[in-house]
């Protein structure tokens, strides 16, 4: 392998390999799939949040010419969807949230399907719903699920280290309550499922997803198929942002309709329907406590959260756990305690938004840290730096942080943001804030393994084809994987073709979530490329009269280390390996599974400084600039890394300042791309990108993640800047909408007068 300072592909600004397809309209997304005989599927949803279904009469819909199938719960007996199979695909007799799937139609065209929906007659007996978490917790509240008293789905306390002792002995304890609103995972491409299930032993699903494997594992058993009999085609995925982590009711329903009609079926979640298919975060109320000594040592953190899990909470509590746990990834805590009670309500099931609950909890933590620093008369960056962990630190729950550039990141953002000239010196309502964060790469726990595999095929012309199952939702992982392959084989990235997005063609990959792509799949790809290289090395070594392990693959040439003048052409070696008496075809295989028992091998770390200006009359927060420094281990593709930073800063700003699903009596008031506000061009801040390369021992070429680590940290930095701009006033609720900011402005004015 080339030494780390001698890389020829990695570290270059590599434009996306699929750029020409995507920029010319050639890229095929699921909605572009147009199969012969394909029917239009539509779902009838409950208009009530809580109701008993007394009767469903589908006869009129069935009689409408052009209608090919009408299905209800009767056609999906025992079929459980959702995460961990907690959610029946159709409501059977009880509806527990507005928008619940009641029936579905397949028809020749959309117009007929829409008409048929109107012809399905459903008689409901409306029941009193419980729509707000606060109400669900009141004594005597209606129960969402009869066997969950008090509407408590789960109540877990995890205690790491010695939190009680830390809080008892600390000089100071800071405590504050925070809350978040219902959010939506909005991505450019709408939810869509196209299913061909016309042969009994083969189900093919075209859909955007972060993981073909989890979808295979969900759909296979539901339809009596083995995993490999389910083919997931995710050609292109139009954004995911934590919102396409698994199978949803419309996937099952499209399959049911296709099997029944013996024709392909497409379901497109039109308009406001996307807000029902979505499983983003619900309301959270949480109390954060931080124990700190006067010398500035952070000793312990305690988070106590109530989380609205909606009608089928599944694993939402897990993200509360992560949100508490991640504090011990940046601070060397003596104790960390996290309690999260997951509450059920008659609302859409909740799962996670981009950045999980970590973005909002970090916004709370970084406001608190700024407060503590001010109280102790300390500069916030100094205060965080004093408490920042370093490489080699052992976390409280078994983590070993093999690489960590957190302090370097803090130093960079201090310098590059002009912090020392600005902090404490800005005019009123103009603030600067710092945030730090860390993010784990890896998803052990979804399965016992966290395996990615890859195949590298080298054609006789020297063109390399890489087969990988990792979905590219825009993050650019396919280009990253091609660069890793090219680096190992000493060729250019554009000489690697990537075959992906089809579980029939590609080897196993757990998927593009939990920040696992670069580390897990990257290692698998590297191993496959090394395997292929080994096959060529035998031939090349013989020709060069050198040892195989001395060979250098670089610039399309193969030579013995130290003797680049005597070299072989890569493509000719490939050709010769096949066109010989042995006739060997070069095909490398590799896989990677984390060698550790815990979920994660590697953590990225980052620090960011945000500068904001608040209009004290309107409460509008303008984010002026964000300075980002991130320890990514190693920068594989600077162009893609910068793009990741831009996008995550956008996403964090959007969630922190804008995004909120408004509702009244369970009815969403803004389920549209016009009224669910996300910022556009004018609102974007200036962003500067800085990277710290700590060369992690686990990641391929030392690389770590650059996804949600950014989004979490930006959340903290902007929140801290708003806190600073308000002269040290907390904003307790996310999003920090103008009217919430204005309340704080008024409070500040009142306290100034007093």
């Amino acid at each position: 392998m080339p030494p780390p300072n001698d890389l020829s592909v990695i570290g270059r600004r590599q434009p996306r390999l699929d750029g020409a397809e995507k920029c010319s309209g050639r890229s095929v997304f699921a909605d572009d799939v147009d199969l012969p005989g394909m029917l239009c599927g539509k779902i009838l949803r409950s208009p009530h949040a809580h109701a008993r279904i007394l009767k469903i009469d589908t006869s009129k819909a069935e009689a409408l010419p052009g209608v090919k199938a009408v299905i209800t719960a009767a056609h999906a007996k025992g079929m459980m969807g959702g995460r961990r199979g907690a959610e029946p695909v159709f409501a059977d007799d009880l509806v527990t949230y507005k928008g619940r799937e009641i029936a579905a139609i397949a028809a020749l065209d959309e117009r007929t399907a829409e008409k048929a929906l109107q012809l399905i007659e459903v008689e409901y007996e409306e029941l009193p719903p419980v729509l707000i978490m606060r109400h669900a917790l009141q004594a005597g509240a209606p129960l969402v699920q009869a066997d969950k008293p008090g509407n408590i789905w789960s109540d877990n306390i995890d205690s790491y280290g010695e939190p009680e002792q830390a809080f008892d002995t600390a000089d100071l304890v800071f405590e504050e309550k925070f809350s978040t609103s219902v959010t939506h995972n909005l991505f450019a491409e709408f939810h869509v499922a196209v299913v061909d299930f016309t042969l009994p032993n083969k189900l093919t699903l075209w859909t955007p997803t972060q993981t073909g494997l989890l979808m295979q594992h969900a759909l296979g058993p539901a339809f009596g198929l083995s995993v490999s009999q389910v083919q997931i085609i995710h050609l292109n995925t139009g954004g995911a942002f934590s919102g396409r982590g698994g199978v949803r009711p419309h996937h099952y329903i499209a399959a049911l309709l296709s099997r029944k009609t013996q024709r392909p079926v497409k379901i497109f979640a039109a308009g406001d329907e996307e807000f029902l298919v979505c499983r983003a975060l619900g309301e959270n109320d949480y109390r954060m406590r931080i124990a700190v000594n006067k010398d500035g040592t952070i000793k312990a953190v305690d988070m106590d959260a109530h989380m609205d899990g909606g009608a089928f909470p599944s694993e939402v509590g897990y993200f509360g756990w992560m949100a508490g746990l991640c504090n011990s990834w940046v601070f060397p805590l003596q104790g960390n305690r996290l309690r999260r009670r997951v509450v059920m309500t008659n609302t859409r099931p909740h799962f996670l938004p981009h950045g999980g609950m970590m973005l909002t909890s970090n916004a709370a933590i970084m406001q608190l840290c700024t407060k503590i620093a001010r109280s102790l008369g300390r500069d916030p960056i100094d205060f965080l730096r004093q408490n920042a962990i370093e490489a080699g630190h052992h976390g409280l729950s078994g983590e070993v942080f093999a690489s960590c550039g957190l302090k370097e990141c803090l130093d960079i953002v201090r310098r590059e943001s002009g912090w020392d000239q600005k902090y404490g010196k800005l005019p009123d309502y103009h603030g600067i804030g710092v945030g730090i964060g860390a993010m784990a790469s890896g998803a052990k726990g979804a399965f016992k393994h966290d395996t990615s595999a890859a195949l590298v095929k080298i054609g006789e012309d020297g063109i390399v084809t890489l087969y990988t199952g990792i979905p590219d939702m825009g993050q650019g992982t396919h280009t990253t994987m091609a660069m890793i392959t090219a680096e190992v084989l000493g060729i250019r990235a554009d000489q690697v073709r990537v075959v992906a997005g089809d579980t029939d063609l590609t080897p196993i990959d757990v998927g593009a979530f939990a920040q696992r792509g670069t580390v897990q799949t990257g290692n698998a790809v590297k191993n496959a490329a090394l395997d292929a290289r080994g096959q060529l090395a035998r031939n090349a070594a013989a020709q060069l009269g050198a040892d195989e392990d001395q060979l250098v693959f670089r610039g399309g040439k193969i030579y013995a280390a130290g003797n680049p003048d005597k070299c072989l052409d890569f493509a000719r070696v490939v050709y010769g390996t096949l066109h010989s008496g042995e006739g060997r075809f070069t095909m490398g295989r590799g896989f990677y599974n984390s060698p550790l028992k815990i979920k994660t091998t590697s953590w990225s770390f980052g620090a960011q400084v945000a500068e904001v200006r608040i209009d004290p009359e309107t409460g509008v927060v303008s984010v002026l600039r964000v300075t980002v420094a991130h320890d990514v281990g190693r920068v594989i593709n600077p162009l893609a890394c910068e793009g990741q930073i831009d996008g995550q800063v956008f996403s964090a700003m959007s969630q922190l300042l804008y995004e909120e699903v408004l509702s009244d009596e369970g009815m969403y008031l803004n389920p549209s791309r016009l009224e669910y506000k996300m910022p556009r061009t004018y609102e974007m801040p200036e962003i500067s990108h800085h990277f710290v390369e700590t060369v992690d021992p686990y990641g391929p070429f030392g690389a770590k993640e650059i996804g949600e680590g950014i989004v979490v940290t930006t959340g903290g930095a902007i929140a801290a800047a708003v806190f600073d701009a308000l002269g040290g006033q907390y904003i307790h609720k996310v999003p920090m909408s103008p009217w919430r900011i204005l309340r704080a402005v008024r409070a500040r004015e009142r306290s100034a007068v007093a």
Partner: protein
Amino acid sequence: MLLPDHQYVTTNSLKECLRLLAESREKAMVVGGGTDVIFNMRLKLFQPDVAVSIRKLDELQQVEELTNGGLRIGAGARLADLAEHPAINDRYPAFAESVRAVASTHIRNMATLGGNICLHTRCAYTNNSEEWRKGLNSCFKTEGKICHVIQTSSRCLAINNADTPLALIILGAVLTLQSAGGSREVPIAEFYTNDGMDNTVLRPDELLTHITIPPVSDRTAFLKLAPRQGMDFATVAVAARCDGTGEKVSKVSIVVGSISTNPIILHEPSRIVSEQGLGDEAISAAVDSIRDELGPLTNLFSRASYKRQMANVLVRRVLVALRES
């Protein structure tokens, strides 16, 4: 979300268009740029039998410079063209500003001035798909008899979010409404009603054909506050006009939009600054006086109290802008 079944008709002359509107009675809907009509059709809030396109009527797309220094603008003129029209920018900068404030570049490349003036009211409860609305009883917009915003209301309380009428009201623009039977001129200040369903006095057989703006040499200003720039309806928008120079004024008019079912013409603050001038104290007194005239604020995507505060802020800012212009 398909468009409901209907007949689409392109008209090639104004006469033909007016005849068609007369014949179809209430079952026709005029389509200019389509951006508002098709939005409402997708949500099945509009289900016309006939969509009557006026896009080919050249006479509705002209901007005519009048000898008195005013302008006569065809209702079918595109907002994008008006935003850059030299005479408009020259003579009516506040109006030009209001045109540029509408939605996005994309929308302005399609939408017409007439369409913005006749923009249908919007409501948090009904601006969702038909399926979504089924959990609610039918309201005025969906052939029912209640308003979800205030259940006891005898009328629809949906909001008028149009930007350009605010500027046109302070400029004293007059609308020409034509029908097969004749033509009438209605000052735009008298065009809107307080009913979110039938929010203008335009009859089903009538077409808004022209907007005439008289010559104006007064100072004018337009301001819009929106959750996002470049692509949004206003939280609050305001237009104002006054004569005189500096703090000295004798005639002031102020209009606030995106607050209610119709643009609200504020009388009391206008009276205060007309009498006391545009000094800081007078402006504060004027701002303090608007509460009663705004009436109850309802049906909001943002908090009512916030909207009210922003109305105050924008009125103050627009008066300061006048003083400094």
